[in-house]
């Protein structure tokens, strides 16, 4: 059976690409520290020697729209083009062309449907920065096939937080029941406290540093019980109006497992939002 060789959860900050490539006067003062943290984080994936990446993210009203909005969607295509005009415009993100892995997509779709998740699918999916940001940070060669999985953290009504956790557990089981000798990394990105388009946006820190501290603890310790005990669809409005993206972190805690401490934990307090990076090695840390 296939092996989950790394479980990785991260924020996805669309400004990283521009900050890390800027030089001279354009280079922000925090860029060097940010790049150093990302390079250490990248090493945690490289060391796991993955063959294929299952990538959890969320479409930001690019291809998925309110006339036909899936809650959970799995890409099943041989190729995924990536990034959109408005992401090039606002963030300077480059375009990508990523290879798909249709066999693993099919396995996850079939198994998910049979496990109580009525997953939507897409045979032609242009993916966005929720998936390309971790390509840029973790695998800039963009040389591994991917299975993209989109969640709706954006357009209410949203699924409950516990469904994100359950989907994460299911993804873990499905990958581990895939009859293959491939080494799979599951990578998902979300947000800590975040405000977009509201009064608390673009402050000197994330909108709710207390929530961020607590969230990092939950994730680092795999404390799903504590997290599910406090986090509801209503409570996520309080730390910032885009904080429902935290549910993708909860999904990744479901992949990693209840009570499983992360092997790599790092964070960076930036303007606007806190960055956070986590890696678990289900089979023990690679040497």
């Amino acid at each position, binding site marked *: 059976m296939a092996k989950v060789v790394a479980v990785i959860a991260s924020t996805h900050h669309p400004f990283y690409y521009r900050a890390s490539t800027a030089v001279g006067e354009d280079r922000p003062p925090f860029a060097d520290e940010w790049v150093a943290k990302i390079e250490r984080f990248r090493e945690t994936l490289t060391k796991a020697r993955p063959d294929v990446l299952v990538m959890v993210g969320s479409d930001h009203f690019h291809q998925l729209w309110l*006339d036909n909005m899936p809650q959970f969607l799995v890409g099943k295509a041989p190729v995924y083009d990536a990034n959109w005009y*408005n992401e090039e415009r*606002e963030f300077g993100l480059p375009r990508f062309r990523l290879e798909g892995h249709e066999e693993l997509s099919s396995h996850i779709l079939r198994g998910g449907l049979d496990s109580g998740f009525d997953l939507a699918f897409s045979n032609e999916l242009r993916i966005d920065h929720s998936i390309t940001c971790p390509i840029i940070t973790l695998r800039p060669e963009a040389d591994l096939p991917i299975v993209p999985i989109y969640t709706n953290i954006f*357009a*209410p009504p949203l699924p409950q937080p516990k469904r994100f956790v359950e989907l994460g557990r299911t993804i873990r089981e499905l990958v581990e029941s895939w009859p293959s000798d491939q080494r799979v990394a599951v990578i998902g990105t979300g947000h800590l406290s975040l405000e977009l388009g509201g009064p608390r946006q673009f402050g000197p820190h994330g909108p709710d540093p207390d929530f961020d501290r607590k969230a990092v603890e939950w994730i680092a310790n795999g404390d799903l019980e504590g997290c599910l005990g406090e986090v509801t669809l209503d409570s996520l409005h*309080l730390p910032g109006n885009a904080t429902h993206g935290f549910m993708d972190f909860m999904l990744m805690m479901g992949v990693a497992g209840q009570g499983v401490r992360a092997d790599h934990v790092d964070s960076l307090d930036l303007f606007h939002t806190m960055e956070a990076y986590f890696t678990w090695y289900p089979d023990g840390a690679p040497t």
Partner: protein
Amino acid sequence: MSKYLLNKFLYTVDRDPELVERYREDGEAFVAWWEETQANRILNVIDGEASTWLAFTGPERAALAAHDHVALFQLGAHPFLTLTLFIAMFERDHPEPLSYQKGYGEALAHLSLPYPDIAT
């Protein structure tokens, strides 16, 4: 109340560089054109099979025509869509990095939780 249509306007304009410029240049004329010719188009469906029922309310039309992001927030437009499109239109007029985004937030500072419901 047609939050869905507000969002459809913001979404369809934001993804098209030509429409972004037209909206920036003349909000009132552009919103009138869009409501007349685009509001009822189902995306990905031929024109002969358009919808028949979508229209802005007066306050919605006025908020869009005036580029009034505060009013759009209060009307329950999706804040991500509004922010992204307004950055595309107006950040260029504020050369100091992030100054447009900060001013955008300050203009909303009088609003407190709970924010207007954005569910459609």
